[in-house]
């Protein structure tokens, strides 16, 4: 999982160690109540490698990308970029089949080109 942390840091360009845990991001966040994890927690979780929990969280999709956290952060940590990177990381997970073999028979349909199923099966598997 630590690889994933590195990827998220690289995609976002954010260094979570710069965070001094003041919470101004969460104070400024308009979607605070919708989230299970809050902006300052995102930063902390990335720093401590708790990325799996974060990637499974529904909260990351509640972020409006309004950039209020990024704008207000006194240390230029840019939590919004981090959240965006986590979302990208979820979407871009490589080496994974998003379609399971057992699902395929159910999907077979005369109308659907077989090619589509094959490529969906292989998607991201590089």
């Amino acid at each position, binding site marked *: 999982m630590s690889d994933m942390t590195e990827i998220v840091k690289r995609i976002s360009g954010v260094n979570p160690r710069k965070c001094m845990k003041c*919470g*101004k991001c969460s104070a400024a966040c308009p979607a605070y109540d919708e989230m299970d994890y809050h902006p*300052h927690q995102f930063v902390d979780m990335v720093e401590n490698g708790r990325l799996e929990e974060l990637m499974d969280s529904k909260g990351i999709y509640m972020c409006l990308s309004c950039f209020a956290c990024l704008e207000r952060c006194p*240390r230029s940590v840019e939590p919004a970029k981090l959240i965006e990177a986590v979302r990208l990381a979820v979407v871009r997970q490589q080496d994974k089949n998003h379609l399971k073999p057992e699902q395929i028979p159910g999907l077979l349909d005369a109308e659907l080109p077989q090619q589509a199923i094959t490529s969906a099966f292989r998607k991201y598997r590089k």
Partner: protein
Amino acid sequence: MQKIGVFVCWCGSNIAATVDVQAVSDALAKEPGVVFSTNYQYMCSQAGQDMIQDTIKEYGLTGVVVCSCSPRMHEATFRKTCEKAGLNPYMVEIANIREQCSWIHKDKETGTEKAIILGRAAIAKVHLNAPLTAGQSPVTKRALVIGGGIAGIQTALDIAEAGFPVDIVETKPTIGGKMTQIDKTFPTLDCAACILTPKMVDAAQNENINILSYSEVESVKGFVGNFTVTIRRKARYVDETKCTGCGLCTEKCPQKKVPNEFNLGLDNRRAIYIPFAQAVPKVATIDPNYCTMLKTGKCGVCSKVCTAGAIDYKQQDELIEREYGAIVAATGFNPISMDKFDEFAYSQSPDVVTSLEFERLMNAAGPTGGTLLRPSDGTHPHTLVFVQCVGSRCDGGEKGKPYCSKICCMYTAKHAMLTREKYPDTDVYVFYIDVRTPGKNFDEFYRRAVEEYGVHYIKGMVGKVVPENGKLKVQASDLLGGQQLHIDADMVVLAAAIEPDKSARPLATMLTASMDTNDFFTEAHPKLRPVESPTAGVFLSGACQGPKDIPDTVAQAGAAAAKVIGLLSKDQLTCNPCVANSNELMCNGCSACEKVCPYGAITYIDKDFRGPNRTTLRRRVAQVNPAVCQGCGACTVACPSGAMDLKGFSNAQIMAEVDAICK
């Protein structure tokens, strides 16, 4: 040809274990000019030193090479040894065969070979050494303190107590500085004015202290012990010697709409004013930006009411020039502007104030007479939110200051505590990132605010403040409670970061004192020389060196004074003899050296030289002031003609070392 003695030290086994000292002394004995060469167990011991002294006398040595530990260790020792034997101390060179040879090599052959080469280089250098004598320069026994806040006052008082005359230059009409604006002081809660104003009076009454208020330093020339400073005495349009400070003019002046800077613009003053009741000197000043008489030539009310005849509309700025032996910078600090932090709605609501403004709102001499009232409607606030670290500890750049302003935690605790004490019906919230209370009785003070006064300390920051229906909607995070808070506050108080006064930067240039990127003065050494600037004769007092509270400031002010007293108690200063000198015959007068000199040690004169056929040629040539030059050598390389050389590290000496090493 020099007669050189070589002394190879064993340093017990430190050197002798990896360097064949006998081989080294034998090899170096064969070098040209070497008349004596030996080795000994501990050269720095009394016996070793005696040996050197005896040899100098016996052989009439003109130069000494000691192959031993680093010159940083014992160069001074061996110089003194030789001086006692009648040899000029600058005829000694050290070959570092311990730190830079025996300790880094294991193979004896390698170590011996290298030690011989290092010895040869030192011998080659000694051949070109010349006796150097340290110069002397006299000390003007008067000090200048720039800035009349608590730092400047304390420094001046301490210097004056030791019997030396001191001038305080203060740009404002009165001394006292920021401390005059503060209501109470932490952690004892005594009133700032009560402890400060007696000191101001002491300063005014001390025979050795001369206060130049409403004045600015215009230029600084000279060097340690011999500064010449030009001071601009700004026209206050009131004769200081005649004004009695009765204040009648300040009541009669018809121009009433001048923002009162003493109360940070929270109320107004007149165009002629005395900043506050205990001002020193207690003399009125006319503000030329607002005075109708000065602007239009019509009015003259103050002149008519002044029974002392002190008003003088024709007064001009006056430049005075004085000599000083030492200069103390005590230019202090200011809170930063809140322009870049408008998420806290500072510009949108008068009820969002900075902490210094809050001091004035709590102060009995302030705009509200000491009753805490909202600036917007004059009502009593019930919910107050304090925000710490506004502009401090930021990522640098535009957002704010990268440093901790140090005093905010404590004064915020003080504000919260005082508010709760005076108005128990209030709810007080303090939003903090960290609470920093290192200091005697500081943490106890903070805990009292929480435990006894019931101040709500919340770990987290305020994200935004929105004025709405006469309230301030505060949105903040409570990190420990894990929730976002929404508070309807009546007032928000911002603990604005502090920054050095804007006058410090140009002053540093005048003093050739260095500054850090935040415009705080740099100390000569961050730990061991904290009150001296790297420029000799320039000392630092108070917040101009870094954020400080009052006790730290007073302590540092006393330390700076002690350094000044130490300097002024000398009649003569001994200079570093390893200084640059300019060969006038070769100097082009091009000013390249002057431009790179960090100390302003180089000046130019027009000098007559004999030309061919009995003619005289007048040329511009550089002159180095040996009392100011610190011997860095920047000028020697900047000089295209090679006219500038450095004593003790001359071009010829360094090249001789190069040759010896590369041979």
